[in-house]
């Protein structure tokens, strides 16, 4: 390995098992073991499927990371970006040794400090001082090292007065500040940070970002930073990986990676699944007023849902929720068999829901679709995070211009 490479990752993959783990696994383990002694492959691993969460695959093993290769030079600040479930956190977990990879190898130089979560191991009954030592030791610091840094940590967190008070009496802000301070003062050559900046107030977030910038630029340490905040990634890192479905889609300069990410994050407009012997949703589509999944605010929005009924059934119910980017449900639409017969034909049933005056404010939205049998109260299928679309305000204009996050929806109104 050349002198200045801090981390080298070769053919790294990680498989997760979906569904229930526990019941029946003794028999499955025996099957695995039997396959192994005959020199066969693990019958439950299927290599070559990508991790696409929108479609159901045959095997219940999913590859969260698949054949990842990269090198990071010492002193680089590297951003890792991608949608939820792209494998970012898995990669960080493997790098910080919390979980082992399924295949592949990572080699590196220097001590790793990982901040996957702040305040891990804080004990509420212990004082701030005791927790600094405990948390520091959990993160891998020696007692002497913590002693030396104690003043700096306390100063950064701004908790001098409460140092000997049990942390259960701290405000949540103080708690987080203390936790970040301990981790940020860890002497390590490689720092791994996962969205811890999503906590604390704006001022403290700035302080943390500043500290991280200092760490990578000033002290020449290698930093790996995962975030959804493109702004932070842009200011803190020079190169970035864009992960998509467990594969590195782009590896290069941060601004280019961010561009890739932004242009690539539009998910497929339509949800499709192959009909089988069970009652299931086979298609969901949002028909927006404009092309490219853009909807003009105030125009009618149509949602089409196809359900396959392999046999006759009564008492079905279909509903969906429209979620915004903060994962808050905004709209709920439903239809039940009890009110008006629904899904009574065998075969594909086509449903169409029209929202005549879609008042959603500008922003990105997606659907959660639910299918249930209401008499027996059985939940048949739920499909999360599909059919993302964007609402823009195209026709109406106001003096100030439309600002983001002004409201959740625009009501019809008039003044007298």
């Amino acid at each position: 390995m050349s002198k200045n490479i801090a981390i080298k990752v070769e053919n790294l993959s990680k498989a997760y098992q979906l569904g229930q783990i526990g019941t029946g696994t003794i028999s499955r383990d025996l099957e695995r073991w039997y396959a192994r002694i005959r020199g066969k492959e693990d019958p439950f691993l299927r290599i070559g499927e990508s991790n696409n969460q929108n479609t159901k695959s045959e095997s219940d093993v999913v590859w969260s990371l698949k054949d990842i290769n990269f090198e990071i030079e010492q002193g680089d600040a590297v951003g890792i970006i991608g949608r939820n479930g792209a494998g970012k956190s898995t990669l960080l977990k493997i790098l910080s040794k919390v979980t082992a990879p399924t295949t592949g190898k990572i080699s590196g130089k220097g001590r790793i400090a990982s901040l996957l979560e702040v305040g891990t191991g804080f004990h509420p009954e212990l004082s701030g001082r005791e927790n600094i030592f405990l948390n520091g030791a959990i993160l891998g610091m020696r007692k002497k090292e913590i002693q030396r840094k104690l003043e700096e940590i306390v100063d950064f967190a701004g908790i001098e007065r409460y140092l000997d008070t049990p942390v259960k009496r701290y405000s949540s802000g103080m708690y987080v500040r203390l936790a970040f301070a301990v981790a940020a003062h860890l002497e390590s050559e490689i720092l791994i940070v996962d969205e811890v900046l999503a906590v604390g107030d704006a001022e403290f977030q700035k302080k943390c970002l500043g500290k991280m910038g200092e760490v990578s630029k000033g002290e020449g340490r290698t930093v790996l930073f995962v975030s959804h905040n493109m702004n932070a990634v842009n200011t803190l890192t020079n190169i970035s990986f864009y992960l998509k479905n467990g594969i590195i889609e782009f590896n290069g300069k941060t601004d280019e990676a961010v561009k890739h990410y932004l242009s690539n994050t539009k998910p497929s407009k339509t949800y499709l699944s192959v009909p089988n012997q069970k009652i299931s949703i086979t298609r969901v589509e949002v028909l927006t007023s404009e092309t490219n999944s853009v909807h003009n605010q105030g125009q009618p929005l149509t949602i089409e849902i196809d359900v396959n009924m392999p046999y006759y059934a009564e008492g079905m119910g279909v509903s969906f929720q429209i979620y915004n980017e903060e994962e808050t449900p905004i709209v709920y639409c439903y239809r039940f068999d009890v009110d008006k017969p629904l899904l009574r034909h065998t075969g594909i049933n086509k449903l169409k829901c029209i929202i005549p005056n879609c008042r959603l404010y500008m922003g990105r939205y997606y659907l959660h679709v639910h299918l249930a049998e209401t008499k027996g109260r059985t939940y048949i299928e739920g499909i999360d995070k599909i059919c993302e679309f964007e609402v823009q305000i195209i026709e109406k204009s106001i003096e100030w211009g439309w600002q983001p996050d002004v409201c959740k929806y625009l009501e019809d109104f008039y003044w007298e």
Partner: protein
Amino acid sequence: MYNEEHSWTIEAKASLFDLKLNEIWAYRDLLWLLVRRDFVSFYKQTILGPLWFFIQPLFTTIIFTFIFGNLAGISTDGLPKPLFYLAGITAWNYFADCLTKTSTVFRDNAGIFGKVYFPRLIMPLSIVVSNLVRFGVQMILFLIMMGYYYFTGANFNISWAICLFPVVVILMALLGLGTGMIISAMTTKYRDLAFLVGFGVQLLMYATTVIYPLSEALKKYPAYAWIIEYNPMTPIIETFRYGFLGEGSFSWSSLGYASGITTALLLFGIVIFNKVERNFVDTV
């Protein structure tokens, strides 16, 4: 700044026998801080504080004296009944605490283990050491009671085997640790075992010479006493009693047998624990 000492690799398959003892040594400060945390958080916001360590064995002794000693009339090898029971309870409690606490170590620490890496063995080790503190406090109670019976002229005498006390403590700790680690490793996948531990430990106590002497069991149930004899905790408790009170069936061979079983269980425990530790976050 960068030297070979700091280079590392992470691989999909690790050697089963790589016990990472040097890593544990590097994290020794964490071990002490965890022990301190357990001890301090135990009595914070209680009135009696560490006195609580006394209360449980004291009351158990009173109940055992009443039920097994007086009501059931089980012999105590001619020793004062409370002293006989307290000796058994103190030793048994240490073993049982090590076992039960260690057996849930993955579940109890899933939060920390899922976020930060440190040698996982530190956790069970800290459990054994913090229970040692508790055991030490309970030994004081036992010594006080010994003193009381000595001055009231009861019939017991300390034998040379008291020198084996450190050996006995280490055996109890390691036996509890080993068995606990095996169970903890298996409960990450098969939760059923967690239910077994609760009453299993309770039942095991009756298969150990806590409330009766081994000699009595051999006399009354010669056909089944082998169950008790093969239980590795039996020679440990018998040696403990023989050392402090001068009564009990002590033999080098049975103590050697207990040591052998302990070593085997401990090694197996560490290996299986290390194997599970690498991936348990995904299944717990």
